[in-house]
């Protein structure tokens, strides 16, 4: 049982069910605010720049990027992993906190899941654009063909990637959409606009909310969640295998799967924190996303940050302990010291040191600082991928081939474009979809809001 005396009041403001519906749906009924238009304009601009990057890459060639014979993966893969990592928060929230019976997830999971969808979509663009012959990209699917038939290489982590990412995108979308159906029905029944009634009527699939419907709904949600839970672990494990299955020093380590999964959750929670702080500010959702919520995320981040720090240290230890000179060179002479010192220490600082500030309650309570730290985490996680991809490739086995890598304007454009895409997606989500899971909040509302519940005991 949720003990409000111990855990604090989850939803503040003594809300009734009607208040919840009203509060959450209100932003959707309001006139589109100015900040929305401004941000959407900026996001669209960024997206268009990204489209230019795409066009330039496809029409001219991957040569427009800063890659070379040695460093054949660059920003595209860094950003891919970064986005995928961010995309882990939604499902992680929904599933793990569900399993752990964390009631406070209800105010956040909708937004987190939406973020997942858009982040995975942004991530999915990178493997596409990064192909040399995007027009032949369908070769990657093992479809029946007249070449023998010729199938794919099922040993390739990239194939696993394709399977895992598409499964993940599908599963998280399904899960996310399932959760929204009752809320769409709520909007459908509340709204006075005929247009909205029609649209949300279609979106709600004819939800009526009777007992049997709710039972099946809950069971299905639980099943989908249950299946998605191992997926959360496996997807980023598989992404990590892109690296760990290879022979490249600094990639070829068994620590990668757990390290990546944790890293993904870390970056995902970081991004959730960033977004939720913005959301509660803009939509005045302080009653739903309370300081307590943020505090909880911050605590988790502190914990994960410690794991990350351990992983970094383990890597260094293993490089030394394995006696592998290539590995040792990569870590000691190309990361800790050497050409990529800056990237390595940025990563370490942002991921392992800065989140330790959350040990202090004062800092956890200061939303501005929390916001800034969450941004640092996002940056740190980006650098982590940068360190992994670039440093390992640039100086690998044969010194004669060593080469450095610098991104070009096209690569930057593509990255900014995906930021735009993500932002635009989030904006649409803010505007047209209930940003907090209404029915889920309601279902935990009673036991978590009023202090009565335990005084009665």
């Amino acid at each position: 049982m949720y003990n409000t005396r111990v855990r604090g009041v989850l939803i503040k403001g003594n809300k009734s069910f009607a208040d919840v519906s009203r509060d959450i749906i209100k932003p959707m009924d309001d006139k589109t605010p100015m900040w929305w238009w401004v941000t959407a304009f900026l996001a669209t601009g960024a997206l268009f720049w990204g489209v230019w990057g795409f066009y330039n890459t496809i029409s001219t060639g991957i040569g427009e990027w800063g890659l070379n014979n040695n460093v054949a993966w660059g920003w595209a893969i860094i950003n891919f992993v970064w986005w995928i990592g961010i995309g882990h928060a939604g499902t992680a929230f929904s599933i793990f906190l569900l399993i752990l019976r964390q009631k406070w997830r209800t105010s956040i999971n909708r937004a987190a899941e939406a973020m997942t969808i858009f982040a995975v979509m942004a991530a999915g663009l990178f493997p596409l654009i990064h192909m040399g012959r995007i027009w032949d990209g369908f070769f990657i699917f093992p479809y029946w063909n007249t070449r023998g038939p010729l199938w794919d290489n099922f040993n390739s982590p990239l194939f696993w990637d394709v399977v895992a990412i598409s499964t993940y995108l599908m599963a998280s979308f399904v899960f996310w959409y399932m959760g929204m159906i009752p809320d769409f029905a709520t909007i459908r029944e509340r709204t006075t606009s005929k247009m909205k009634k029609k649209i949300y009527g279609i979106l709600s699939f004819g939800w009526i909310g009777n007992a049997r419907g709710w039972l099946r709904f809950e069971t299905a949600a639980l099943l989908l969640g249950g299946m998605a839970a191992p997926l959360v672990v496996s997807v980023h494990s598989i992404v990590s295998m892109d690296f760990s299955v290879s022979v490249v020093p600094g990639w070829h380590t068994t620590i990668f799967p757990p390290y990546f999964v944790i890293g993904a959750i870390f970056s995902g929670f970081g991004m959730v924190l960033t977004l939720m702080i913005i959301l509660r500010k803009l939509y005045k959702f302080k009653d739903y996303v309370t300081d307590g919520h943020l505090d909880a995320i911050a605590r988790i981040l502190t914990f994960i940050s410690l794991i990350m720090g351990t992983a970094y240290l383990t890597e260094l230890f293993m490089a030394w302990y394995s006696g592998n000179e290539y590995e040792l060179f990569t870590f000691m002479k190309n990361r800790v010291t050497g050409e990529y010192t800056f990237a390595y220490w940025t990563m370490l600082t942002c991921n392992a040191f800065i989140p330790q500030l959350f040990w202090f309650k004062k800092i956890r309570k200061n939303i501005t600082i929390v916001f800034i730290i969450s941004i640092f985490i996002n940056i740190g996680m980006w650098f982590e991928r940068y360190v992994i991809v670039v440093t390992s490739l640039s100086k690998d086995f044969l010194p004669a081939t060593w080469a450095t890598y610098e991104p070009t304007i096209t690569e930057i454009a593509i990255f900014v474009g995906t930021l735009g895409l993500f932002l635009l997606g989030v904006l649409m989500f803010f505007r047209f979809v209930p940003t907090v899971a209404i029915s889920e909040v309601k279902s935990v509302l009673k036991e978590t809001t009023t202090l009565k519940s335990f005084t009665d005991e």
Partner: protein
Amino acid sequence: MNNRNIIGIYDDQDVLLNALDELQENGVKIKDVYSPIPLHGVFERLHLKTRLPYATFIYGAIGVVSVFLFLYWTSVVSYPLKFGGKPLNTLSFIIIMFVLTIFVGTLFTFLTYFIREKMFPGKQVELPIPETTNDKFAVLIEKEVTMTEDDLKKVNSLLQKTGAVEIKETE
């Protein structure tokens, strides 16, 4: 068939659950309950069950077997190609089988849910009490032909007694 229902509307989940108990004790057959949130108490009291988990299990089982057969056939039988000195039938299959099983399970569970619920995009529905999607809980009691006026009265009073804020009769 007479479709008239007596509907008791409640505004609190606990009150509703108590009401259900009381109604059932008094032999009132409850046809359905509409609520804005899922209530386990309701499922228990109405003795509702679902076989969705079994379906999911079957999908998963079919998924894992067919994916393995496909992988084995393509890389060992149909067009065996040698990759990096590995045997044709490799451990890599496990990863793909694992993920694709989830894929198959998720997708088909999702579809099964909608098929069972007969839900589809654009389905037109008319709710007896639209507020049940917001903050009201509605108990539907079918007004059977056999019901006498007394019975109806009893139901009405029971509803009232258990804290219904409103009682309605609908087609």
